[in-house]
Structure formats: C-alpha cells, structure tokens
C-alpha cells in the first residue's frame, strides 16, 4: 500500500494539460513549406521515393508523403518541414501542399456530414482496423489513449466491437487478405459510420502502393470523413484531427 502510494506520488501528474495548444519541436517533420525560388522542379519530383511530389506548381501530397524529409536535405533552399503537426483534413485535395502555400492544412467544417454532429454529440467510439498496417500507426493509436495524451478526455475511445462504434479508423494500405474483413467490420458499425484513414499507408498505399498484394476498392468506393497524415501520425495529430472533425472546441 505504502509502496503504491509512493509510486503514485513520485510519478506526479503526467497528462499533457493543453492538447490543443501543445507544440512539437524540430526536427519533428510536420507540414512542409515549398518556397518560391528557382529550382529544378522535375529533378525534385523524381527524387521523392514515393512519388509524393508533383510539378507545375511544385507540390507535396501529404497523403503520399512518408515524411522521410530527404527532399528537404537534398533541396534545402526549396523545401523544408515545419514542426506544425495539425495537418488532418476532411478534403483529400487539401493534403496537397503547393509552392508558396502559407495556409495551414485544416478541416473544413462546412463539409462535415451533419449526421456526425447530430448522432455523436460529445462522444465518439471508433473501431480501429489494422489492414496490413506495419504496427506504427496502430502503436500511435494506442499511445493516444495513454495517461499522457489521454484522448478519452474528449470522449473519444477505441472500442472492441464495431457494433459499439460510430465508425471505423483504418491504418495500413489494405491488403487483399484483409479486404473482406474491412467490409464486414464497416457494415457492422453503427451510424453515422464515420470512416477515418490514418497514416500515409492508409491514405494512398504509401511505399506499398504498387504492390499487387493490396486491394483498395473499399477506400475508393466510400466517402472518407477524415484523413490523418503521417508515417505514422503523431498522437497529437491524431487527437487534434478527430477533435476538429467533431467540431468540439
């Protein structure tokens, strides 16, 4: 008893008080910035290992980017990564950061499905589906619920059964071998059947996107309510992304 109390005392308060305002420090790689300076755009685009960079104008697709930061090391005058971690959005095109863009990537509240707000109120239960995820994004989902990040303070929790869930959160590029399980799980979820894609692998297939072992029909067929980029996404990116979707401030 005394021993337990002394451990509790020594550990003190661990939770991050201000999840919404906490900043991350470099070298964390969050939102990239592409400067309007002269450079060989084609060379930069060809350099990206996952084809996330396009030309005219030069842009980086955060849904494809693996945040390796190599482009910023190779072309520092043109590209740099800020430590801005609030980069989730509900509009796929918003994940494309263009040359000269100065606006942050944010959720557009006008296009959030109204039934999400109506049905969920201030509680959101999600069923996480790892569909060929490499256990990095899954790891950060678990971390989001630990005593420091404490996602449940916002009423957000991962639950065991899709029948108890308001929607699903997919991590991983979705393998052919998991495709059927994803469908079954989604069908079992209750309204409003929110779909969230978390991590680059889930959003675009990431480094695996050319693999013949993937089967991404599900992602192509459904309206996605939220994209959380990252490789894997940081817990602060995850929590802030979901809170913004629910419009809870």
């Amino acid at each position, binding site marked *: 008893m005394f*021993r*337990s109390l*002394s*451990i*509790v005392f*020594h*550990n003190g308060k*661990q939770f991050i008080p201000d999840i919404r305002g906490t900043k991350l*420090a470099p*070298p*964390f*790689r969050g939102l990239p910035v592409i400067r309007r300076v002269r450079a060989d755009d084609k060379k930069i685009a060809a350099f990206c*290992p*996952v084809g996330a960079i396009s030309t005219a104008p030069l842009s980086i697709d955060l849904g494809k980017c*693996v*945040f*390796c*930061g*190599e482009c910023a*090391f190779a072309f520092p005058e043109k590209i740099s*990564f800020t430590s801005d971690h609030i980069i989730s959005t509900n509009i796929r095109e918003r994940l494309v950061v263009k040359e000269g863009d100065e606006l942050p990537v944010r959720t557009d509240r006008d296009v959030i499905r109204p039934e999400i707000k109506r049905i969920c109120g201030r509680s959101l239960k999600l*069923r*996480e*589906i*790892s*569909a*060929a*995820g*490499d*256990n*990095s994004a*899954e790891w*950060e*989902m678990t*971390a989001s619920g*630990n*005593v*420091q990040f404490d996602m449940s303070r916002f009423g957000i929790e*991962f639950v*065991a059964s899709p029948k108890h869930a308001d929607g699903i959160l997919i991590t*991983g*590029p979705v*393998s*052919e*071998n*998991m495709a*059927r*399980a994803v469908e079954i*799980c989604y069908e079992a979820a209750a309204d409003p059947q929110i779909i969230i894609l978390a991590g680059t*692998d889930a959003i675009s297939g*990431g*480094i*695996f996107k*050319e*693999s*013949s*072992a*993937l089967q991404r029909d599900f992602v192509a067929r459904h309206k996605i309510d939220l994209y959380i980029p990252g*490789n*894997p996404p940081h817990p602060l990116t995850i929590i802030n992304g979901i809170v913004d979707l629910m419009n809870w401030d």
Partner: protein
Amino acid sequence: MIEKRKDIVRIKNCETVKLNRIPVLDYDSFVDLNSFFLKDGTKHVSHFFAFPSGKKLRLFSLIADDIAGDIICSSSIISTEKPLPSVTALHHSFHPFERDIHEKFGVQYTDHPWLKPLRFPAGIKDKKKIADYPFYLFEGEDLHEVGVGPIHAGVIEPGHFRFICNGEKVLHLEIQLGYQHRGVEELFVTKKRLLERIILSESIAGDTTNGHATAFSLLYESLCGFKAGEHLSFVRTLALELERMAIHTGDLSALAGDVAYQLGNAVLGRLRTPIINYTQSWGGNRLGRGLIRPGRTNFPYTAELAESLDKIFNEYEPHFAEMADALFARPSVQARFEKTGVLSKEDILSMGAVGTPARSTGVKRDIRSTHPHGYYLSFKHEPVLLPQGDVYARAYIRGREIRQSMSLIRKMIASIPAADKNVDLSDKKCAAESLSVSLVEGWRGEICHAAITDKSGNIALYKIKDPSMHNWFALAMAVRGEEISDFPLCNKSFNLSYCGHDL
C-alpha cells in the same frame, strides 16, 4: 576447432559470398546435413529459401553457428515436379521456411508434418482464399472451438486464432496468419532505388524500424563493398538499444495491464514516452524513421544530444526501478506470471525459437553476443538468461535487458566517435551473382536479411526473416494446457509481429 568441410562454406555476419562458392549438394545429402547441424542446439536455422533458376529451384540454407560465430551456407538444386522428403520431418524448426517454398513454388513434401499455407502471398498460381485455411479439426461433442480475429478486441494487427478447448482448458491453438501480406520481399526487387528500399525496410515492421533498417543497411553496404565508419555504427547501435528499451518498457506495461495491475500499466506505459520522444528529438520520428541510411545518416549524434539523453535517463532510471521492483515483487502479479505459458529448453530448440523466449529457457541466442557486428564487436555482450521459460521469465528478462541497454548507452555516449563523411551509395555497383546475409538482434530477437544478385549486380531475390517467423509456433505451444483466459497474457509475453511475419 572447426573442421574443414567441402560441402559447406562458412561466412561471417554481414559478408557477401559469390554464388559459385556455395557448394551444391544432392538433395538427400542437403537434408541430412542441415538437420544434422541442428542436433546439439548450438546451431539454428537463420534462413532457408528457394531461388528460381530456369525450371528448377536452388535451395539455400543459412545455419547460424553460435559457437563459431559464423553462418554455414549450403545449397541444393531441385525440380518442383516430384515430391520430396522435407527437412522439417527431421527438425521442426524448418517448418515455416518449407511452407513458404511449398506455397510459392508448389513444391510438394512427402513427410512435412504441417504443410499448411503460411501467408497467402500475392502473385502465385491458383491462389487460395485466406478464408479457406485448413484448420485442424476434431470430432465429437466433448470439446469446443473458440475463434478470434482477424480483427481483435484491442488495437492490434490482424491474425486469426483458433482454440480447441475442453472447458476452460486450451488443448490446441492454431494461429493463422497472412492478413498483413503486402508483398514486401517482391517490392525489394521491383523498387530499384536505394532510397525507396531503405524506406521500405523501415516499414517491414514499424515497431522494429531500427532493427530492420539496420539489417538492410548492413546487407546493402556489404553488397557494395562499403564499410561503415565508427560513427555510423554508433548511431545504429544507439538506435537499436533505444528501441529495445522503449518496446520492452511498453511490453511490461501491457503485461501489467493483462493481470489488472493498473498502476504498473499506467506508470510503465508513461515511461516509454520519454524514450521515444527522445528518439524524435534526435531524428524527427518517435520510431526512429529517417535515422538509419546505408552509407550515411542525416542525423549525426552530438554532445548536446548526449547531454539531454543523460538527463532523461537520470529521471527514467529511479522511476523504472521503483515500478519494476514493485511489479515483480507483487504477489498478485507473481501468481499470474509464474508457471504460466511454460516452454522447455527442448521445445525452444525444436522450434528454433529466438530472442527473449529462447533466453528465458537458458538458450543463449543473441546475435549481439554470438554474431556481433559494428559497435558490438568492441565489447563482449553477455545475454541475460533465465531457466524457467514462463511468462515471469520472459517479463523479467525484459526488465533486466532495459537496465543492460541503459548502461550500455551510458557508456556509449560518454565517448562519441567523430562524425563520418556521408557517402551516397545510390549508384554504387553491387557484387554480381552473390549472396549477402545480415543478422541483427532486434528487441524481439534475431532478424535475418538475405539477398541474391544477378549478373549485373541487381537484387534478384530479397528474403526477410523477422524473429516472429520462428516464435509464433512457440506461442501456440506455450498456451497448451493453460486456461484460455491466460492467452492474452501469454501473447503479450511474446509480443510477436504479424506484419514482420506476413511481409
């Protein structure tokens, strides 16, 4: 004294050998020889795979010799047309490797005791559906089955577990994997650029980013004849040991959670955070992504980084010690951990298990000690061993290994080698028609990467072995005879990788 034999070639860890130097044996001798090597338990199979050449297959066997500290290579050329006797029938530890060969190339074995699909890979003829897996069945009404997965209650990777129980008692557990298959080995061949490949290696198993990225880098450097400098080796070793500390801490938290010891679950869970946050402060990513690159690093280690790590350790250490001591001394924890999920040394040797499950039965398997590379060559690593093979031993070893890694890191950061010049190996030519092998002790156990190159030095075959490949079967054996309610606890005491297995 190692006898000189003509039917094998011995190579060191991270060595590249010309294919024509590896003896080709007739199949019967190949089977006899490789099963013979494993008889006394001082050697184990690190990898065993097939390389297609024309209509035939060339089988390669890589046996790690833990005494001599090298790798025994041999090969044999087979035709896929007629059924063959299996090595597995003589030594069970070959079972996943022969299942892989059977599944990919249609090789039939006459006496393989468990010739079932391994991972339902893409791109094979007559691909079976994963839903059609042939489970072990029983007849009668005394027993019942419990099926779990592929999607589990918790936030974990997918896999299907089928228990056959008598009341609460587990008689048999069959673990069906393959849901995570992404075609990683094929992508290593089709992706030609080094940057693509290193990022792919970081995604083999995200929780072992540093382990697999190190294994790939060592292998690739060996293929193109590059020797990493002291600083690069330092960076990799530091990243590997931090990964070990972080995951072991998280594992102890999960184990505490599974026996409803909430305090241990919360405190150890929060203690993982400063370690992975430190990794982020060094290389920008909590899992270490971006730190390890063949020939170079974007994040050389500095005195300032060492200073901040020292501070973090000074805070971590007393909190960890206080919590771990309380955990292991607590009677309610001991009651659940002790004599649960027991494996004998004989079981471990027969299944070829590695990592903490092996060390928890006194089997001294640790690449850092038996096949050291880079920085590990500069000192003698002593693996932590315990004899009893239960959940308690697997947990306790993790606690000891955390302290061991911390003390190693403290010594390391006291003298940081001068930064090496970064070398771009992207366009460097790889040795042609060669086999290259790297072994790395990840936090789960032995990782093995192997590559075969063609006439132009392009990678023609890439093979990956996560330690989970050996250990999944060990988990299935560990729960036999236990109550089904002890399964989660046993499972967490192994904490195996689904994606590392399914590739």
